[in-house]
């Protein structure tokens, strides 16, 4: 197993942990946290491929990760603001209780 494969496995593990959390936890905040983990796993993937890939001098992976981090930040902010707003309206942050879109 070469370092690249190792990184990729770690990233896969992180990704599935993130998905597991997003799908199993009831709290909306933790769903968001799971999503952040998934994003981070993807970022790790990019860095790994940049480091062990064919043309690291193009900095493609690095730039991508920079942008990905920016996007993740924006998304976390908006998502958490949404959770706050919903909390204010329904007095709960439990996703299994917010089923207005049912049917």
């Amino acid at each position, binding site marked *: 197993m*070469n370092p690249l494969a190792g990184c990729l496995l770690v990233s896969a593990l992180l990704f599935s*942990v*993130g998905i597991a959390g997003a*799908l199993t936890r009831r709290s909306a905040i933790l769903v968001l946290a799971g999503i952040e983990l998934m994003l981070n796993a993807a970022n790790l993937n990019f*860095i790994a491929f940049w480091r062990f890939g064919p043309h690291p001098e193009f900095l493609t992976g690095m730039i991508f990760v920079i942008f990905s981090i920016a996007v993740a*930040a924006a998304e976390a902010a908006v998502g958490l603001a949404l959770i706050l707003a919903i909390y204010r309206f329904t007095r709960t942050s439990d996703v*299994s209780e917010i089923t207005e879109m049912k049917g």
Partner: protein
Amino acid sequence: MTLAFLILALLTVAGGVAAMTLRRLVHCALALTVAFAGLAALYLNLGAEFAGLAQLLVYVGAIAILIVFVVLLTRGGESDPEHVFSPAGLAGLVIALAVFAVLAWAVMTSAVAHGAQSTPAPQTSMLQIGLTLMQRYVLPLEVIALMLTAAMIGAVILALREKPTSPASPSPNPELRAR
């Protein structure tokens, strides 16, 4: 696969698992922070200094804090500690395992897994990163700036507490709770 890498990876994964399984939300948030930090160290280990530091700054410094803040602000809406996992949790777990299996399978059977052992670390400088950003990726940069602005405004508006303009103020609807 150096030892440092293994330790850091273990740390990160442990942090992630802890974040997803602990009962109390604040603990989860802190574990998440550990995971983020572990990831930053991994980046540094892989030679992506800028990414690692950016990770630290943004994720640990902002997002984790934000999460803690929101946890604290939504205190009363937590589900009771006995039932932190949702009813369809088992299915979710199975699916997650399936995802890992597929991904692992893809990695292990692909060409990358049996390629060269290691290559020398690339020498990157801030100047290079800056130039690349400003020359090649200037458009995404501007778009990202716009997006961040929009997100900022959106978040503020979403989280703004509305002033009651009429006697029938939009009070929280208790019927929406128990389903």
